[in-house]
Structure formats: C-alpha cells, structure tokens
C-alpha cells in the first residue's frame, strides 16, 4: 500500500512538474514571439524548448539558493535581501531589482503614511464628534 502511495505521489509530483514545465514553456514562447516581432528575427521551436528547460532548471537553483540564503541569515522567510544576493551576479539585474525594491519600499511607506493619516483623521473626527456631542449635551 505504501509503495502504491509513494508511486502515486511520485506520479503526482511528476505530473505537477510537467505542468509547471509546460507553463514555463508557454511563457517563454510568448516572450520569444514578442522579441522576434521586435527584432524581426525568427525563433525555432528547439530554441524555445531549450530556453524553457534552462529556465526551469535555473528556477530550481534559485529556489534552493534562496532557501539557503534565508537559512544562512537565520530566517525562515525568504527576504528581498536574499533575492538581491541571488541577483548580484549580473549588474543590470541587480540594479533593476534594487530599484524595484526601493519603489516597493516607498510604496509601503506611503501606504503606511496614508494609513496613519486616516487613523489620525478618524481619531480627530471621533474626538471632534465626541466634543461636539459633549458640547451639544452641555448645551
């Protein structure tokens, strides 16, 4: 029974991987079509298949590395720092990622600021209302 379960699990994981690979393949195909329409250059199917395989393998590597980096920093969650460490090889990628990171950080700050403002406003409103209510009651 356990063997069957294991085998079925394996089958499931295998089919899962296949689906993932298919998804990657599809995405790579779309991207290559865009590039070919841009540069006026054709992509053969083998090329797209090769690129998708490589991408899939690299994704596996990235995932393992990210997990290792997170563990190295004694965290249990993968962080943007880990991602930056991963991307340090290519300068352009690192730059892009750091910029995006900064944008996201800014967004977060802005959101936090907005939330704070809202809270403060609400507080003020409630206070004013309370005061108004008190005044009215007094009156």
């Amino acid at each position, binding site marked *: 029974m356990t063997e069957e379960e294991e085998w079925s699990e394996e089958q499931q994981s295998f089919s899962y991987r296949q689906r993932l690979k298919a998804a990657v393949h599809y995405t790579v195909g779309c991207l290559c079509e865009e590039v070919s329409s841009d540069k006026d250059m054709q992509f053969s199917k083998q090329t797209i298949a090769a690129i998708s395989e490589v991408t899939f393998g690299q994704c596996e590597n990235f995932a393992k590395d990210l997990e*290792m*980096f997170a563990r*190295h920093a*004694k965290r249990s969650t993968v962080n943007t720092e880990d991602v930056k*460490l991963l991307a340090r090889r290519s300068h352009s990628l690192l730059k892009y990622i750091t910029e995006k990171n900064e944008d996201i950080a800014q967004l977060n700050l802005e959101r936090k600021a907005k939330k704070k403002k809202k809270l403060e406003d609400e507080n003020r409103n409630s206070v004013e209302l309370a005061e108004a209510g008190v005044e009215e009651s007094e009156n």
Partner: protein
Amino acid sequence: MADNFSPDSEPTTRTLLRRVLDTADPRTPRRARSTRSGAQRDLLETPSTRRQRSQTKMTARRRSHTAASVDRLARVQASGHLEEQTPRTLLKNIILTAPESSIVKPEAVVKLVPSPQVVQPSRRESSRGSLELQLPELEPPTTLAPGLLAPGRRKQRLRLSEFQQGMDWGHLSQEPRENADASSLTSSLNLTFAMPLQPQSVKRPGLARRPPTRRVVDVGTFLQDLRDTSLAVAPPGESHRTPVATVPTDTVLEDTQPFSQPLAGHSPSVHHSLPCPSPSGAKEVEGPASRRTWSSGPGLQNNHSGPGKPAQLLARKVEEVEALAVGFPNISSISGEDGVEPLQNGVGEEAEESMEKSMSVREVEKAAEEQGSARAEEPEGHTEVAEAAGSLGAIEAKEPEGSSEDEDPSASPKLAPSTPEFLRTRRLQSPEPAPPPSTAVLPSELPKRLSARIPPRPRIPGSRPRQDPYKAGLNHYAKLFSFYAKMPMEKKAVEMVEKCLDKYFQHLCDDLEVFAAHAGRKTVSPEDLELLLRRQGLVTDQVSLHVLVERHLPLEYRQLLIPCAFSGNSVFPTQ
C-alpha cells in the same frame, strides 16, 4: 680483548660493534692474509700485547684505539677482496674506517697512519684493487700532503689523515672526495668509505661550520663584486637624490605600477618586491664606507678565480648584486625604517636565491664528474669563500653604523652613503661624467635594468598587496594545471589560466564577503564557506562540510576545524 674497551660512559653502537667483532675474531680472512703480512703481524701483535697489559681507561682506550686503528686497517686490507665479503667484514670495514673523533685524539691516528705505511708498501699494493676508489684523480690531497701521494691503500689511510688534517686546517677538501665517493659506487666497499665522511663532517666543528657560512659569504661576495665594479668613489649623485627623497612616502608606497616612473617608481617597485624578514644578510649592505675600504683584494681574487663555471657564478652574482645595488639607493632614499627592513629582506632573499643558484650550479659541477677541472675550481671557490667570510665579519661590524645612519630620517646622510654604491654599479657601463648628465642617464638606465632583472623573479613575496604574492600563488596553481594537463602548454595558455584563476578567486572571495554581510557579520566564518560549498554542490545533505574536511585536508586541519575533534570528547548540542 673486550676488556680493553673499558666501559665508556656512553656505550655507543660503534663500541658495541667493535666489541662484537673483536671478541669474535674471524678465522679465514685474517689467517689467509696473515700469511702474507709478516711485518703487519708484528705490528698487530705488539699493540695487542699492549692492549692486554694496559689497565687504565684512557691509556687502554688510546692504545686500543690506536692499535685498533692499525688492526682495522690491516683487517681492511686483509678482507679487501670482494669475494670474501661478508656482513661481518663489511661491518668491520665500517668500524675500522670510521674514525672516532669523539674519543680518539686526531694526532694519535695520524701518527700511526704514516708509520705502518712505510712498513707495508708491498701488501697494500697487492690488495689494493678492490678498496681503491677513484683516488688518483683527486688533486686536493696535493694541497694538504703532497708527500703522501701513494696509491692504493696509502690513499685510504691518507684520506683519513688528510681529513683530520684538513679539518684542523679548515679545508673543504673532504667534500670533493665525498662526492667522488658517492659517485664511484663500484663496489659495496666503496660505500663504507662514503659513510665515514659524513659523521666526520658532523663531528668536526670546523666542517660543521661550513654550510652555514656559505650563505653569509655569498652576500659578501656580492659586496665584493660591488666593489669590483666600482672603479672610483665619488659622491656626485647626491644632487639628484634630493628630489627623490622629497617625494612623499605615501605616494611612493601606493604606487603599484612597476617601472612606470623613472626613479620614484623604481623605489617602490624594488621596495615592494623585496621580501620578508631576513635581517642577517641585508645589514651588510648598508654600510657604504666600510665597503669602499674592502674594495680590491677579495674582489680581484673573485674575478680571477678560475675558468668557466666560477666565472659564471660570479657573473650571475654580479648581476644580482647590481640589481640589489640599484635597489639600495632607491630604497634608502625612502625615509624611515620601512625602507631599511625590506631592503634587508630583499638582500637576504635575493642572496639566498642567488646562493641557491650558485649552490645548484656547484652541485651540477660536482655531479658532472669533471673531476680535474671542477675540483680545482671548487677548492678555489672555497678558498674565496673562506676569505670572503673573513672580510664579511669585519663588514658586519661596521654595518650597524651604516644602518643607523640610514635610519636617520633626513635625506642627505642617506643619500651620501647610498649614492656611491649606486654609482659604482653604473661605473661598469659609463665612466663618470658630470653629475647632471649622470642623473639624466641613471633614470633611463634604471628602468631597463630593473625591468630586465626583477620580472624574472616574480615570486618574491612583498608588501605589495596584489601583485607579487598573489601572482606567486597563481603561478603555483597554473603550474599544477599544466602538470595535470599532461601535455606541454604554451605560455599564453598558462597566462590565460592564470587570468581565469584570478577571476575565479576574486569572485569566490567576493561571495564570501557578501555572505558574511548577509548574515550581519563583518568576519567570514566557516558557515559562509559551507554556504559557498553548498552552492557549488560539494556539500549536500549527504555530505557535510566535516566530511569534506576529513577527506581532503591534512590531519592537522581536521583537529582545528571539526569541533568534535578538538573538543576532547565533551560535545554539547547547540542551543
């Protein structure tokens, strides 16, 4: 007979063996030979009777040893023929021929040796064949005992006496013979002669001193070569030194471009190319005035030493000396002790290197078996060495003065001592013009000379952070690579390999730095290394770092790196 060897304070193996051999006297070889030697038997008998009579320790020892030496020689002669060789006879020969320098006074053996020779010329010649080494070609004995140039057995005894005489007189004549012995291994008996020479050299203080002094002496010969090249002494170069001296040391030290600037550039290049501490050899270079005084005599002797190889040796030394000399004034122009120490180190290092080269050349000479010419050269070289050692001792006495001078931060005192050496080297090429033209000439000559000479020695480790020690390591790995390639490699290929290794190691270290920063640390820890290896796939869930350490590193590192190993059986779980 065993009683004669009255118990020594230290029963050495030699004495034990002797006792064994003496007590169990062999039957055949002695008796077979004893028929021939009437006179020898008489001699043997009288010492043996003396032996039996003697009571006191010292006299017994002496007589027994002197008698034993005669006995030994006789036995050696007796058991000379190869056909009768047994382990016993070999041991006997070993004991007989190996003199006991610790116990026996040299004169005693020497006295005895000549006397039997006179008595037994015939016997020796008869049985000289097997034990005769390639002695006729040995000329050094002529310097010691010209009268004792008898062939065969005489030579064996001669050598013993000559060794002791030579040791007393401090000659190195033994060494060529040693090499002759080592080379002429025609029979196993020859081995026995090869062996005693070494313990002799160890026990004799005169000889034991030889190898260490050679190092020192080579630098002395450098200095002498320096003096040779200096025809006249003049202090004109000081004027051009001042601008160099005023260059701030920071820029000079930070200059990592070799040979980019004429003088200021050379000073750091040579400065940085000079290696780590060996202050002994280099201090000698510092004192200029002392050097001037020691100019002609030994230098001339060095130059006129001998044909061929010693000249080559000296030529090489002269080259290196010039390189050193060129370096010295530049370095001395740098203020402070930093200049002095690398200078010293550089001299020591280069002295050692050149000494190694010269030693290798000498060894090649010896191995080449050019006995006549080579051995004639070697003793000359050794005599030069001996005299140079004498002069060197005086130089060293004056060196501290020179070095203290150089450590003076002011530029001019340094310049004055340093420039004459520098100019001395230049004298070879151009007789001294007026100072300004010489200043113009010198910078242009300097780059060529230094560039010609220092790149051949890129391995001198120095204070330069990147270039020299780094390249030294890369050189090592590139050579390993070419070794494992099992094919000859082009120089360009080796360079490419070095470049790739360079980038690889750079990348590796950057990764380590980043990993450490990632964990919020400033120091690289083994965890970072483990992460690196994990990324490379060397460390997996099955194979841990400790397993790799055990597999690939030597045992000592295992104790350092693996906590279980160095914790001494007290291991606690991490919390």
